[in-house]
């Protein structure tokens, strides 16, 4: 079967990703059908932005086998496939037809039909064209019977399902040039629309064109999710770190975290195995997704004194400190670590690309003279964590003479120095995110693979394991360590998040957010606590917390897990201060909070080693 469609080169779009074998321009409010061969790539582009494109696919050999959105949701356990392990779109026979390779929009629909005549009729628009009718027209030549509504994958269609089950839709998130790139698993007949809906915001009230490019089977495009860090910044595709090629030899289970490919767990090991290696021996983790910025100049210290919660003036050169970037209402812009490299040189390591914009904006507003440079591409980092981490690194580490350090034991908690590890230049920092003795090694990406291999080899006598994000999350919850977007955001103060200790209220007379924090500190709206649950059921993020027997809510769970070392179900929660005393008995509401409750007791935020004795050894 061959689609009868004119090929139209695009002049209003960015350059093709590779060798194009066919391309089609879909006029606003129309649809096309077209063939795609096994192994070919199919790029569906939103030419002007905010335009939905519904998509159908049929096995060319037997068009009764078709892409099935319900099967796809079920097999992936996702509302829409995402790039990586769960990226395939399946047929009604549970076979993969296409796989998403790249996606620069990130919001699509798989729940509702392509728009139908009935939708328009009910809204008072009899005779309005619809995607379903347009599909009927273009599929008829292939002997495919018409349907009143097609259960399509609706690319760029912005829908959500809320807690009450209502499906809401709004203007598409896609911008001009946004696209999805799919790879065909077999020969297909595909159909795509440029949705004609102009009676609601779905297409921004103005249907526009969709462009389809088909690329040759010989192309090889990396899997990636495109994100924009800020409204103004360009697209950034998921990238490998310097260590990713080594990691991909040990696991296929990687996902996008903060713009980098990170492992979730390693083949033939897994969460518990990796977790125990951390708690009892030593593990190796790729934390390159952290963002690094260098701040230098005469006013670098005054800037950090303004935006960072700690008293950076008290840091010696070679010392670092954990804290948060604050906004004027006392919210946490991000958490991170400031390293003092010199009298007027600092490095900030946080979570967000937008931290740099924030620092720059504050410097401009305050008229401070600083140079601010994002250096994430120059410093990728490995964490070596666990009680044996010092033994592992001891024989490999040689400190730079200027550091004044002779042995690894001399490197104190939250201290760092230039060194070599097995001859590879690094910055070694005694910091971590696990609640264990550990080190972080910052290295230029060109040495990354070499460093990984050397550590894996040197770690064999210690039974070192690489550790993925699944085990890391369990460890950080046990240690009461915060996750951005979960325990805090810019509306949450450090007093609510549980790091009030990191606010230098006494040492700094003036800093951004101080006035707000002075008001918040005596009685924050909520405070962070740890919970130890009775029974073995694990709580979930967002579950409500109640006083025993009381219908009213006093807070909610932010993170929860089953602690292997404590053999208890634990949680981090944020609750109103009146109930935050250690030992207070509370209940976590399961489901609707009325059918069942789990009894819990308030404890320290860190359920494991709350005194932090292990990291200070």
């Amino acid at each position, binding site marked *: 079967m061959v689609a009868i469609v004119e090929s139209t080169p695009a002049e209003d779009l960015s350059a093709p990703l590779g060798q194009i074998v066919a391309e089609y321009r879909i006029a606003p409010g129309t649809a096309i059908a077209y063939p795609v061969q096994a192994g070919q790539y199919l790029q569906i582009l939103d030419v002007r932005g905010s335009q939905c494109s519904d998509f159908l696919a049929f096995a060319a050999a037997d068009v009764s086998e078709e892409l099935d959105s319900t099967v796809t949701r079920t097999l992936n356990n996702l509302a829409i496939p995402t790039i990586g392990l769960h990226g395939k779109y399946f047929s009604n026979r549970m076979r993969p037809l296409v796989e998403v390779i790249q996606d620069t929009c990130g919001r699509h629909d798989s729940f509702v039909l392509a728009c139908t005549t009935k939708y328009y009729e009910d809204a008072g628009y009899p005779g309005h064209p619809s995607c379903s009718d347009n599909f009927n027209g273009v599929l008829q030549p292939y002997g495919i019977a018409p349907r009143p509504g097609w259960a399509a994958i609706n690319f760029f269609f912005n829908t959500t399902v809320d807690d009450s089950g209502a499906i809401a839709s709004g203007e598409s998130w896609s911008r001009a040039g946004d696209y999805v790139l799919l790879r065909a698993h077999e020969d297909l007949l595909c159909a795509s629309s440029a949705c004609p809906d102009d009676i609601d915001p779905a297409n921004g009230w103005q249907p526009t064109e969709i462009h389809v490019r088909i690329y040759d089977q010989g192309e090889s495009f990396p899997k990636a999710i495109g994100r924009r860090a800020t409204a103004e910044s360009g697209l950034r595709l998921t990238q490998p770190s310097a260590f990713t090629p080594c990691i991909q030899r040990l696991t*296929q289970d990687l996902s996008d975290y903060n713009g980098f490919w990170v492992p979730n767990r390693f*083949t033939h090991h897994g*969460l518990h*195995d990796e977790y125990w290696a951390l708690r009892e021996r030593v593990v190796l983790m790729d934390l390159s997704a952290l963002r690094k910025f260098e701040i230098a100049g005469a006013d670098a210290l005054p800037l950090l004194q303004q935006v960072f919660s700690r008293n950076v003036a008290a840091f010696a050169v070679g010392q670092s400190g954990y804290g948060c970037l604050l906004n004027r209402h006392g919210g946490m812009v991000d958490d991170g670590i400031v390293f003092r490299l010199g009298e007027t040189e600092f490095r900030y390591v946080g979570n967000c690309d937008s931290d740099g914009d924030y620092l720059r904006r504050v410097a401009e507003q305050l008229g401070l003279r600083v140079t601010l440079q994002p250096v994430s591409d120059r410093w990728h980092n490995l964490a070596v964590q666990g009680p044996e981490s010092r033994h592992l690194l001891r024989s490999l580490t040689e400190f730079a003479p200027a550091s004044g350090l002779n042995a690894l034991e001399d490197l104190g908690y939250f201290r760092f120095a230039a060194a070599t590890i097995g001859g590879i230049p690094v910055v070694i920092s005694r910091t971590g995110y696990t609640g264990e003795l550990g080190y972080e090694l910052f290295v230029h990406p060109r040495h990354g693979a070499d460093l990984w291999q050397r550590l894996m080899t040197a770690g064999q006598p210690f039974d070192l394991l690489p550790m993925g994000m699944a085990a890391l999350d369990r460890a950080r919850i046990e240690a009461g360590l915060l996750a951005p977007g979960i325990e805090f955001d810019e509306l949450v103060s450090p007093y609510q998040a549980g790091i009030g200790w990191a606010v230098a209220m006494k040492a700094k007379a003036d800093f951004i957010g101080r006035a707000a924090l002075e008001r918040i500190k005596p009685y924050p709206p909520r405070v962070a606590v740890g919970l130890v649950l009775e*029974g*073995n059921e694990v709580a979930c993020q967002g579950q409500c917390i109640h006083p025993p027997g009381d219908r009213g809510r006093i807070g909610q769970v932010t993170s929860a897990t089953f602690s292997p070392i404590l053999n208890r179900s634990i949680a981090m929660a944020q609750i109103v201060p009146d109930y935050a005393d250690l030992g207070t008995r509370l209940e976590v509401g399961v489901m609707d909070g009325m059918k069942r409750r789990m009894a819990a007791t308030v404890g320290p935020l860190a359920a494991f080693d709350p005194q932090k004795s292990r990291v200070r050894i």
Partner: protein
Amino acid sequence: MTLTVDLHPTSLIDLAGQDGLQGAIALFGAQVNRIAPFQSTSVQWQGVSGSLLRLCENNFRLRWQGDETAMIGALQSAAGSIWVRSLPWLTAIAYPAAILDDLVIPITPTPPHQLTGLPLHCAAVGRLEGRSLLVWHYGLDGQPVVELQMAAVDQGIISRLLGDATHG
């Protein structure tokens, strides 16, 4: 004909539920809490040996060399919220681990599982001509074996397919 390992009179016993991990710990000790899903460990109870495979946080499968009824009763009474049963629709064929590399060639692992070089005390899921298999490498009577668990209705066809595969 490929020589299989006789699994009789051993039995497969599944346990699952909110207290599955605690039930397994109660009978077999804290070592159970150290294995990840699709890893296994050798266990003992009242002097009898078995191998325990973890399937997720609270679900386990036991290859038990002792009395099946006694073990089911012991597990049921070990913790509150669990079920314990021998699944009637599940069956297994075992082979000497020496042929593991040849055996897994025709089996397509389900990502992210990998069958090549499957270590001792590890398992992985895959498909053989569309039929689902769980491949488990563990020790039975001190000998490494590779056990293929499958739906009972698929046993005949899988045996034939593997017989063909292992003999070229």
